[in-house]
């Protein structure tokens, strides 16, 4: 029973308000709405289904347990994507300490400087993937996306799969707007090159 609520038609803000009032149905609706976007983002970042599921679960638990602290002037999607992206990046850093410099030196203030001071991710296309993952992530475009640097990958996913505005992506990734535009531009250029070679 929804008590007269139209969960499917309600905005995120309204659903969150109901969740803050202790309605379990509202919690379920938030999970239903965001489980695929959040899981997809994390899965493409960590490229391991089991790990992605654990991290997605952690993301939701963190967000929903802190639902009282959510302020409606911010977009709920930005909040949950930010936590999901941070969870994925933290996992990558824990798994491979070399990725500590993934974002470049702390004092790097430009995209060029960040790129110059960061390490490239190892070629994930060469990693052994199980059959399911190979099927899911094995297409040319998925292979190419997997070879992007994680921050490029996150930008491309948020822009082209989730359809987020540049401003929202900047807010999610804590990056300046210009950096996001540059990352997306470079990511698309890299994808174009990789897909050309993969098709050959």
């Amino acid at each position, binding site marked *: 029973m929804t008590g007269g609520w139209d969960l499917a038609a309600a905005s995120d803000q309204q659903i969150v308000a109901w969740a*803050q*009032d*202790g*309605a*379990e149905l509202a*919690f*379920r609706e938030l*999970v*239903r709405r965001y*489980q*695929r*976007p959040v*899981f*997809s983002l994390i*899965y493409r970042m960590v490229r391991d289904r089991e790990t*992605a*599921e654990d991290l*997605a*679960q952690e993301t*939701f*638990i963190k967000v*929903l*347990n802190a*639902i*009282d602290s959510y302020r409606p002037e911010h977009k709920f999607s930005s909040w949950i994507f930010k936590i999901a992206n941070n969870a994925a990046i933290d996992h990558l850093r824990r798994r491979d300490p070399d990725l500590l410099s993934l974002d470049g030196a702390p004092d790097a*203030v*430009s*995209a*060029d400087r960040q790129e110059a001071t960061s390490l490239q991710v190892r070629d994930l296309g060469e990693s052994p993937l199980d059959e399911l993952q190979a099927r*899911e992530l094995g297409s*040319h*475009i*998925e292979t190419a*996306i997997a070879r992007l640097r994680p921050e490029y990958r996150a930008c*491309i996913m948020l*822009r*082209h*799969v989730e359809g987020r505005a540049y401003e929202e992506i*900047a807010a999610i990734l804590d990056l*300046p*707007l*210009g*950096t996001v*535009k*540059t990352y*997306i*531009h*470079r990511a*698309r250029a890299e*994808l*174009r090159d990789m*897909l050309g070679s993969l098709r050959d």
Partner: protein
Amino acid sequence: MTRDPVQDPNAPRIPDDDPETDRLLAGVGRFSPQRGFEDRVVGRVRVPPPHWVRSLRDQVRGLTSGVTGWTVLATFSLATAAAWASVAVVGARYTTEIGAVWSQGGRQLVRVLRQDVLERLFPVLASVGTGIGEWLRSVVGLDMQTAAIGYGAVILVCAVALRWLTAEPHKTRGPVDAAS
């Protein structure tokens, strides 16, 4: 204001102007977690109680904040004293009416209760109660109304005295507290 240090001269004004890449990216979809993901998440989330429950709880917390054992004792003593005093006042004011009710059936009822319940089931308790009553009468030498008022007053005075003696001095908010 957000600093925007990156202005790549090669970046196009509209980055999404490459139809071929757009077409490929349009085919990139979402993945689904394993079945039961929603239940697993909700099972580990602390769903807060409804707003009215939290509001009520906050109000009760506000009322009971600062309550100590002595506060409880003082309240209990006050309530007991008030009850005894009420009984005494009502008894003194309506002595005739109470006496009439008592003579019409109350005395009979009490006698039955005493004989059938107390004296049969709790003979020892009844004898002890009688003994205490007689002892109290012989020692205090007062009628029951005066004894009740005196009892309530003694409890109240004792509780207030204990509360006053054991109350902690008020803390002055110093500069360290204020800063924190």
